[in-house]
């Protein structure tokens, strides 16, 4: 394992891999820092550039975006009080007050170093667990894969913030996309609705690009043209210089906080499609609960910044574990990575690490090296980032949509994917407006085919449907799916009851 990792690091340090990794990391830091531009959007923009690259070059660039984006989001959180991305929201609670109190450098670098530590601790988990988990998954038959994918979908549908019913409907809608066009087992045409474009089925990448890009851009566009709130920013001329040794000591003198926040980030990352936005809030909440001075949270306490930033970078490692060991995307960013693997003809899943050990360990190495690059980029250019975030959205959005169009077109060099992008762009925006969560929809689109293939394989091997329940792993996974849905329902009713009690208490 260590030999392969060492070889991976040496490999990634070659210019042909280091340059895409560096460029990806830089774009990630900038994209993460730009309020209104998420990491998903940034990675979608980078995707078409990876088509002409080798798999490790392309994946390195994407990992760079992911790591850079998670760290970049804290810049505006600390200095402008505006989170660059949802996973930096909790950083704002203490980062901005600390900066406003005259310590912007401390706030910023506490976040950056906590991100680095959280990310690198996450790397230990990533390298140590992916192989063993993939080996466990190798024992799976079609029954277990079917149940695993059902579990992933039910967890995502249950854990999203919107209602459980909407989460489940969104997941089911995603699965409907996969049944249009052709049957993945025998290739027979079905439900083409008389549209020739549908005969080959619908690629998931244009759907993903359309849904996420439009949902986000149009949600920003609808707020344009009105009065803008004045930003209560930290003054631009203020010094950001700090003693890095002091900052590092400030973080490592709180080992339990760092380890617990990292653990939360990893655990949330491993669960499909929950993401860094939940990780940073949960880690912040836990840090507050365990703190001896919870009353100081929200006033510029270092614990709040460390918890939020360590967890959101560790979250990246957790998401990578899920995709590399099971082939299930941990979030939208890894879903795009899954698409990139498919474009290069690489099958994700438990066989990935066995059949593509060089690539897998190259990805681990890219993840580790990306942290060093983030640090280097921010040491040199943190002040410039504040200027970059001033780019008007009216300039940014058309360029982003052109890159999305190229990304969709270049998948098969046909216009049909561009039309899919447009249709699902409208659909994604409508979903947002009707309050449907996007994550279960996308997971449904990604896993729908796999669920069908494994279901049919299982039935072809043995027509006894009870095997899904009587095989121990498959049965346990299905029981877990039911339990996760039951938990979501219980949580929903508990929350309603709490709201009702609070309303009554007002009287």
């Amino acid at each position, binding site marked *: 394992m260590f030999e392969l990792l060492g070889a991976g690091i040496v490999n990634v340090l070659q210019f042909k891999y280091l340059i895409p990794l560096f460029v990806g990391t830089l774009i990630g830091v900038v994209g993460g820092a730009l309020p209104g531009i998420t990491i998903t959007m940034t990675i979608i923009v980078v995707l078409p550039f990876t088509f002409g690259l080798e798999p490790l070059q392309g994946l390195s660039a994407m990992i760079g975006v992911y790591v850079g984006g998670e760290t970049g989001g804290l810049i505006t959180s600390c200095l402008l009080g505006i989170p660059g991305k949802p996973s930096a929201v909790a950083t704002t609670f203490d980062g901005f007050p600390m900066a406003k109190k005259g310590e912007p450098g401390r706030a910023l670098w506490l976040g950056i170093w906590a991100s680095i530590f959280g990310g690198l601790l996450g790397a230990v988990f990533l390298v140590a667990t992916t192989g063993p988990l993939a080996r466990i998954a190798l024992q799976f038959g079609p029954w277990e894969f079917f149940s695993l994918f059902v579990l992933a979908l039910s967890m995502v549908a249950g854990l999203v913030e919107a209602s459980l*019913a909407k989460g489940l409907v969104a997941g*089911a809608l995603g699965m409907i996309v996969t*049944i249009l066009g052709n049957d993945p087992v025998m290739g027979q045409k079905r439900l083409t609705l008389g549209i020739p474009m549908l005969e080959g089925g619908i690629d998931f990448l244009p759907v993903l690009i359309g849904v996420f890009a439009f949902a986000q851009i149009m949600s920003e566009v609808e707020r344009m043209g009105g009065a803008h709130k004045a930003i209560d920013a930290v003054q631009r001329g203020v010094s950001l210089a700090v003693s890095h040794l002091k900052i590092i000591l400030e973080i490592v003198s709180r080992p339990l906080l760092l380890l617990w926040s990292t653990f939360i980030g990893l655990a949330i990352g491993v669960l499909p499609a929950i993401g860094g936005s939940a990780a940073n809030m949960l880690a912040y909440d836990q840090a507050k609960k365990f703190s001896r001075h919870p009353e100081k949270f929200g006033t510029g306490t270092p614990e709040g910044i460390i918890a939020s930033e360590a967890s959101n970078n560790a979250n990246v490692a957790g998401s990578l574990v899920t995709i590399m060991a099971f082939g299930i995307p941990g979030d939208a960013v890894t879903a795009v990575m899954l698409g990139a693997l498919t474009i290069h003809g690489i099958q994700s899943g438990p066989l990935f690490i066995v059949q593509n050990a060089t690539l897998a360990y190259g990805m681990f190495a890219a993840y580790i090296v990306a942290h060093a690059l983030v640090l280097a980029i921010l040491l040199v250019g943190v002040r410039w980032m504040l200027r970059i975030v001033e780019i008007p959205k009216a300039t940014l959005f*058309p360029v982003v949509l052109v*890159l999305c169009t190229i990304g969709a077109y270049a998948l098969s060099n046909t216009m049909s994917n*561009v039309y899919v992008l447009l249709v699902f*762009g409208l659909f994604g925006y409508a979903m947002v407006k009707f309050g449907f969560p996007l994550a279960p929809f996308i997971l449904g689109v990604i896993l729908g085919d796999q669920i069908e293939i494994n279901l049919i394989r299982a039935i072809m091997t043995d027509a006894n449907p009870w095997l899904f329940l009587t095989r121990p792993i498959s049965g346990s996974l299905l029981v877990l799916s039911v339990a996760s849905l039951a938990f979501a329902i219980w949580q929903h009713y508990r929350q309603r009851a709490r709201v009702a009690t609070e309303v009554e208490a007002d009287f």
Partner: protein
Amino acid sequence: MSRDGIAGLAVLAASLVLFVLTLDLQDSPMVPVGPGFYPRIVLGLTALLSLGLVISDCLAQRQRRSEPPVAVATAVAAKERLNYPLVAISFGVFALYCIALPGLGFRIATFAYVVASNAVLAPPRGLKGWAGSVTLGLLTAFITWLVFERYLSVLLPRGRWTQF
């Protein structure tokens, strides 16, 4: 009925229509289950879930009716005013771009789209503003074409009408 109920009804209708279409699918002699087997499960499940959404919306609606009207009015007034016409125009401009792409070719269509979209989102003021929009359009079209066609070997659409 609120937006949840409307969305639920739309999904229910769509899944039922598709479910009926699956009944025409012929079974394959090669596999024990035909191409319609899985779609029927998915569509049946979707129909049930969307029906659940409609029912829960109706129940919630009944509960909302029993709430004091002041609370509902306050919640409506608290909603942010959103610029939907701008969203509709932006979608329209992008749809035109997608339609024009095969005819005009990547470079011309992209230039036109970026200028139009930029002008829609932030109307240029005076000659300088227009010059900025045009420059952005030219740079986007030229740089993306150069990077993708020349360096990444991604062939971008040529115009059927313009041959460019």
